[in-house]
């Protein structure tokens, strides 16, 4: 098996893909948005429970998709809890660069939570597979859409 594939389908990704964390609909969720990838028909719905100050108290998702999109959604829910809206958006910006820019390093990150970015780095193998970047970012697009008031986010 070639290295690029091994990088993409690392054990931790396969594990999150098969056993996604926070795959549920929290009753106290007050924001949600659906993410849709028209290319493959994958869809996830991201639920946020944010307090009055915009701090994310709980985050979860439901949906179906490929190993990459489900693992990414699962890992996203793990790193976003307790984050402010601003920090969540920064994390997405950094994560997006992680998935698309070959020379991006964590020194260039805007987000404060470096440990979160280090965990998300496992998904940076998608750099070698440009059509799969949309899979890795699907749940994140839905999350920012939910922060902005909901609706549907597509990867187009």
């Amino acid at each position, binding site marked *: *098996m*070639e290295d*690029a*594939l091994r990088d*993409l*389908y690392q054990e931790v990704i*396969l594990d999150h893909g*098969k056993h996604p964390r926070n795959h549920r609909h929290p009753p106290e969720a007050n924001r949600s948005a659906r993410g849709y990838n028209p*290319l*493959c*028909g*994958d869809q996830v719905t991201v639920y946020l429970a944010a307090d009055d100050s915009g701090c994310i108290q709980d985050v979860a998702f439901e949906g*179906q*998709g*490929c*190993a*990459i999109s489900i693992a990414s959604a699962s890992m996203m829910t793990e790193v976003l809890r307790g984050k402010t809206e601003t920090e969540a958006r920064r994390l997405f910006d950094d994560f997006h660069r992680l998935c698309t820019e070959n020379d991006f390093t964590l020194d260039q990150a805007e987000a404060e939570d470096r440990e979160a970015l280090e965990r998300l780095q496992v998904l940076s193998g998608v750099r070698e*597979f440009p*059509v*799969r970047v949309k*899979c890795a970012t699907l749940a994140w697009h839905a999350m920012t859409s939910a922060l902005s008031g909901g609706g549907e986010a597509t990867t187009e």
Partner: protein
Amino acid sequence: MGFATETLAEIGPGSNSTLAFDVARVREDFPVLQQEVHGKPLTYLDSGASAQKPRAVIDAMREIQETCYANVHRGAYYFSQHLTDRYEGVRKTVAAFLNAASDQEIVFTRNVTEAINLVAHSFGNGFAAGDEVIITEMEHHANIVPWQLLRDRAGITLKVVPIAEDGSLQMEAFEAMLSPRTRLVAMTHTSNVLGTVNPMKNIIRLAHKAGARVLVDGAQSAVHGKVDVRELDADFYAFTGHKLYGPNAIGVLYGKAELLKEMPPFLGGGDMIRSVSFAETTFADPPHRFEAGTPPIVETIGLGAAIDYVNAIGHDAIAAHEAGLLAYATERLQQIEGLTIHGTAKDKAAIVSFSLDGIHPHDIGTIVDREGVAIRVGHHCAQPLMACLGVPATARASFGLYNTPSEVDVLARALEKVKDLFG
């Protein structure tokens, strides 16, 4: 020009070759098949999406542009007349290919999608609220959405024939749906996902008995075997060049002369008129009435070359070769544990959709690509069918005349690697 021309010279155009089908020689006609992907030989199993082009087609298109390109139907000069003759000559080639009664029944379109939209707008122009159009669960979006748009415009009722477990059409349900209000049955000849070949002759006979007309989506059918529109008694039949080893952006709508004659134009513009004034415009007779604007000239010439190529090899030889591939692929893939084939109808084209337990088709596609294997993964522009099958997407291997049993083995080995990786 290689195999096609030699064969053509030996057996004459249009005849059905009885020569042994030599797939190794056929493969030499397709330059792209010599390519490598990710360091592996290309294993192209996505001809159902778009087929590769033989040198005969590539050369014909280049030759036009290098030696005699001009617009058609306009010029008084030599090139324009010469190319107009060749362009209209392809209409005759297509008419013979479909066994149409006349080349005036052949309308050039961009693709099947445009052909169906043409029928929906023009033939569907006379439909009123309560009139019924029947489609099936196995339609491509191209044969669903135009009818939904017509439903929104004219208030027609859209009826959908269900499929059986094996992916065949539920004929009894179809018969029961036919009513005096049925104006049109719009149905695929061969499912792009399931490979199911519908019993079109019988369907058309039943529809006609009920007083309905029939539009056949032949995108996947004209490729795999002989289509005879008169034997079928089809009212409309659409196919596209790029799945038939020809260029894209050229498609065909066959329509019975008596129907085309009564139909209003679809798109307005140059080339489709008899005379234009600001007060009144009169329209050209079919087929030109339905061909507004400068047509895809080079692509039409390419389509003619593709049909010549397919004719030279022979429908029977292609059908037999593909039937062998389908049988072997079905047998070989079924040996893979956890693999489910979607669509097992008795009458089936060389299209195999499948799922692997617990592994999303998108992941399958990425991994086998690294083995040089090109398959389609996703919903195949048939989301309602995916819902019927209860899957979000499938993987699909579709075979063409240049594929070999050893390529089936390459696919099977690549799928084993997918399973290894996912544990």
